[in-house]
């Protein structure tokens, strides 16, 4: 980190106020966040309890039982599987698409500029509202996407209401909303790459395809990694799109971590299991976010060093 050293000794400010100042400046922000840390600790506590709101008399510590139960709980394994598949597929598709679009738009021109502004629009749409838009578009009576499917010969394509295509439908919404995010990051990365290696390769007559694999991709990889990790962190916690589209259904086809925990808490009022589920999700995201932050800080250093 290129954090600058303290301000040098100045006549007007006393030594005490100089050491206290940074704490005083960040204190209000910290206090607000401590208020948020308390429920976090409470969640850990709940996760170690037998706690159903419908059975208050039965409440008590059961230590790791909620966690141990997961091993033999098919619902948990389903949740883990659906979450991982969802995160893996969305991020994978968005990376490939985002990279392809960024490469297409790399050169600055009026058309490319226009396209990249248009691409901001899905990203600015609330994911929950995007899901509702697609819900209207896939309505069996008048949905335009259902109509397209009919034209293609699929007469009973039921999108989110069929267990076979529900995952595909929510992934489509996720791809629509978030591909532009990856595109923006990678486009910024592409445009910041030094030009000399490409000029040299062109002089040597290296084919463009080879240039991509040998020069562009390796030089871009830190940006790709940052974008992928950032999206992975969000995607494994996806709630809005799935909840707005099907509330985890049909059946438990789309029961990702947060939807399952939400329904556990509010519908079956099983607070203990809900909290334990969220703790497991938190452990996954914490590990991922550590890798992400390290990688991101390194990228920032490079961007600054190169400038």
């Amino acid at each position, binding site marked *: *980190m*290129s*954090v600058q050293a303290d*301000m040098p000794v100045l006549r*007007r400010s006393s030594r005490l106020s100089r050491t206290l100042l*940074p*704490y005083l*400046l*960040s204190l*209000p*922000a*910290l206090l*607000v*966040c401590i*208020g*948020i840390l*308390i*429920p*976090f600790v*409470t*969640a850990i506590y709940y996760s170690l309890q037998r706690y159903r709101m419908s059975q208050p008399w039965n409440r008590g510590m059961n230590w790791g039982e909620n966690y141990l139960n997961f091993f033999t709980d098919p619902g948990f394994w389903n949740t883990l599987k659906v979450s991982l598949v969802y995160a893996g597929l969305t991020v994978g598709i968005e990376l490939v698409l985002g990279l392809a679009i960024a490469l*297409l738009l790399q050169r600055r021109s009026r058309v*490319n500029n226009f396209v990249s502004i*248009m691409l*901001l*629009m*899905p*990203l*600015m749409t*609330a*994911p*929950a*509202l995007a899901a509702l*838009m697609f819900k*209207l*578009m896939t*309505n069996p009576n*008048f949905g335009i996407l259902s*109509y397209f499917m009919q034209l293609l010969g699929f007469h009973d394509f039921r999108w989110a209401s069929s267990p076979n295509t529900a995952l595909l439908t929510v992934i489509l919404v996720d791809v629509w909303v978030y591909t532009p*995010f990856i595109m*923006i*990051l990678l486009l910024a990365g592409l445009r910041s790459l030094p030009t000399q290696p490409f000029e040299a390769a062109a002089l040597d007559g290296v084919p463009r395809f080879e240039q991509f694999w040998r020069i562009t991709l390796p030089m871009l990889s830190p*940006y790709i990694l940052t974008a992928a990790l*950032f999206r992975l962190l969000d995607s494994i*916690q996806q*709630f*809005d799109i799935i909840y*707005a589209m099907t509330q985890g259904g049909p059946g438990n086809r789309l029961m990702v971590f*947060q939807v399952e925990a*939400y329904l556990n808490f509010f519908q079956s009022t099983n*607070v203990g299991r809900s*909290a334990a589920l969220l*703790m497991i999700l938190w452990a996954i995201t*914490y590990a991922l*976010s550590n890798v992400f*932050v390290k990688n*991101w800080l390194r*990228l*920032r250093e490079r*961007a600054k060093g190169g400038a």
Partner: protein
Amino acid sequence: MDHRSALERILRAIALTAIVVFFMFPIFWIVLMSLQTNETILRSPPSMSFVPTLKNYAAIISGELDSNAGTMSIHFMNNLLNSILLSVFSVALALLLGVPAAYAFARHKFRGSEDIAFTLLSFRFAPPLLVLLPLTLYFQALGLANTYLGLVWVYQLICLPLILWIVRGYFEDISPDIEHAYRIAGHGWFATFRKIALPLAGPGIAAAGLLAFIFAWNNFVFALVLASADKQPVTVGALAFVTASGIQYGQIAAAIVMSIAPTLLLALWAQRYLVEGLSLGAVKG
């Protein structure tokens, strides 16, 4: 770069068109839908020729919606007002708290500063329900349940880390020598912060504030868990709309258009700032 073949140019044009169609079509189609009556929406096959009507918007604004079961009164404008209040006050509070803290983290390496900064950032990545579910029980005890104050506070979970980390990057980019010189001229730290650091980091603060506004506006889960009908923003309000059976489809579409229009227009107006903020200061350029 000029020796591209005609074939390549054509392929490129096709690809760009396909991209624009894929990403713009849903918005375009919802806007079209919002201008139609149920009869034209339900036509088969769908057709682009219809007489546009603003009836759906009028219904949403007046709050009297036509449904199969007669007139239904749903005050969507109230949701819109809630979205505005929650987003504006959340961003204002986050700027007030976050900018000085970002300055402290950028300029002073004090004990634990990296740990604190990372903890704050990690809120951005923690599962929101982990905090929200226990918070519902606390809020009931504290009397904060279903209040704007409680919601604005929880919205700091989204706004504050964003502002802190983006603005901190901008403060770090300002050479401390400038501030240094100003202080040697006899000005206090606050004058230096206000006259030198704040204006120089202005674009970064604007970018962070805009992004925070958009994220607050687009948030769904916080209000779903903590707010009841009269405090809900558009994201949650629109869901109730779709699930309430029998509301005319054009009116649902009009409600969605009114909910997404503010962030889309903001994005069009300030796209340069947004792109910079979205790349997280990871890349400047």
